[in-house]
């Protein structure tokens, strides 16, 4: 994905560019433009979603499990997941989820590599299907590494910390 080009004289606002990247990514997902979303991902993508467990004070650092994961994906597996959504038999998304992602609290910090940034954000993803009035509200925090490449920004790494221990949605058929 490209963001609006910056002129040589104007200093870049990296935080704004990262925020725009996250907003645009959410738009692609909400609009089911999964091929365009895939283009946002770096080929070295590391995507994990640890299992959350209620722990005592002595083990709060283990609340997000270091060894248990709901998802542990890379670019190739995400590409597979996207290609499935374009088949006629991805029944979990038939009818497709109506999602609305709200991405907020964006925080940007430089990494040692000068073209990569730590980008943290909070999200709420509303999910509903069909004509029912039931809906899921999936909530969490994301710890991303965004890569400022010559082709535009790419998501190089993402760790999703869900607000949920037991998932409140029937499947992780939507990308977070």
């Amino acid at each position, binding site marked *: 994905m490209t963001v609006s080009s910056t002129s040589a004289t104007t200093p870049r606002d990296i935080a704004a560019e990262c925020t725009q990247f996250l907003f645009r990514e959410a738009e692609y997902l909400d609009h089911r433009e999964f091929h365009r979303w895939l283009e946002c991902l770096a080929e070295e993508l590391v995507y994990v979603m640890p299992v959350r467990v209620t*722990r005592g004070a002595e*083990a709060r650092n283990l609340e997000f*499990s270091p060894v248990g994961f*709901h998802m542990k994906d890379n670019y190739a597996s995400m590409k*597979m997941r996207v290609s499935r959504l374009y088949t006629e038999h991805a*029944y979990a998304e038939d009818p497709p989820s109506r999602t609305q992602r709200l991405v907020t609290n964006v925080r940007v910090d430089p990494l040692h590599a000068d073209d990569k940034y730590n980008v943290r954000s909070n999200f709420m993803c509303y999910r509903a299907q069909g004509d029912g009035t039931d809906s899921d509200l999936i909530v969490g925090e994301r710890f991303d590494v965004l890569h400022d490449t010559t082709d535009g920004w790419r998501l190089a790494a993402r760790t999703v910390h869900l607000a949920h221990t037991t*998932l409140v949605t029937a*499947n992780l*058929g939507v990308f977070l």
Partner: protein
Amino acid sequence: MFDHLTEPKSGPRIQTSPATVELFRTVDQELRQGIVSPEVFSDPELYALELDRIFARCWCFVAHESEIPMPGDYVLRYIGQDQFIVVRDEDCQVRVLFNNCTHRGSPVCRVEKGNSSHFRCPYHSWLFKNNGEWSGAPHRKKAYKKLDSAKWGLASAPHVDSVHGLIFASLDPEAPTLDEYLGGMRWYLDALLGLNEQGMRAIGEPHRWRVPANWKSGAENFMADAYHVPSLHRSAEEVGMFPGIEAGGAGPQASSRHVYFDEGHGMIINDGFLPPPWHRSGFPPEVADTFQLDRLSPDQRQFVENHSATTFLIFPNLGLVRVPASPHPDAPPTVFTYLRQWQPHGPSTIVNWNWTLGWNSASEQFNEDAYVAALSMHGPAGILEQDDTVVWGGAPVAGRSSFARKSGMRFNFQLGLDGMSDYTEDPEWRFPGRATTTALGEAPQRAFYRRWLREVSTPDSVGRTETEQ
């Protein structure tokens, strides 16, 4: 003053309404014809009876031993909808303690996983040892001069036992032993989980996710439903994740069969997933070479060298799935083992619990590859399993429908019944249980619902052979 309201002391705690007794009669008669009323998946009274007569009676899986290896280690788990602390006490004995204080019922443990020598209730600080014994309370010498402390420990499951690392508990004081309960499934557990001395371990914490379904739909699916695989999971073949998906089904191209027991346990068996050098047990040589098959009986060894199980069900709600998987189409196949539990949360909701098991004898790399591959195909984000979560919700909806009830709608379980399909009992099968010639049938599911009916229609206070019919 309430004498006129009391039930007879020997009578059942939960009364069964005439309508439910009638439903039992209907289900009993109709199961012979391979049909089942949708109300079985939705009726609130039936659900209350299931909690009382199935989950509070049968041996239910609660944890893997590797989750609580040290004295004091505990996890919070459920039997039915009741929460228990599954804890290894100071003498290394596993206890299954009801997580409600005997003083006012407050939860004494509010952490899902940890290590503790005692559990202290926050309300009045009643204190319990990790074996459940009452251990004290504030101002004990002045406040509880005559308390019989032996009576006021945490309520605990009367029976706890384990097999190949799987910890089960039964809440019924009169329960048979775990071995008796498992019957012929015990033989197969040796052949699936007891393949070497090092055994298996749970990797990471279990997945938990809420799904709109009746718990029985998950149970019968894992028990025997090969028929749905090429239909519901077709997308897995289309994206290159499950080449030749028909072979994993129940049609003419499939090599699967059923093995099941009248006790409601059962499984899908095949003759090895992948060609040599993969072992017929379903594992690649690097893992299969660590198996110590001389631990098994000659018959069990014969089974392991020729067959593997894709899925199984241990009544009422413990499943296993062991199938090849890869994280994406270009990756080589590996094989994983999941333990699955459908925890009831009302008639039309379950919480799926899912444990990944790895071989202690296998390399870290193998177990990691299997873990990652499994996530792509099964579990909450798995491309196959995502689809299961959207089809099971229909049965309770039909069960609540006035039209379904008035029109006499029934679900069809006639596959393989009385020559309906290419499916018969295999007289050549020399191992425990009833085996079938193919998987193109629903005999195991019918056995499951028959066991279900036996349990749910039998009050605690009468012999297990009598029912309310």
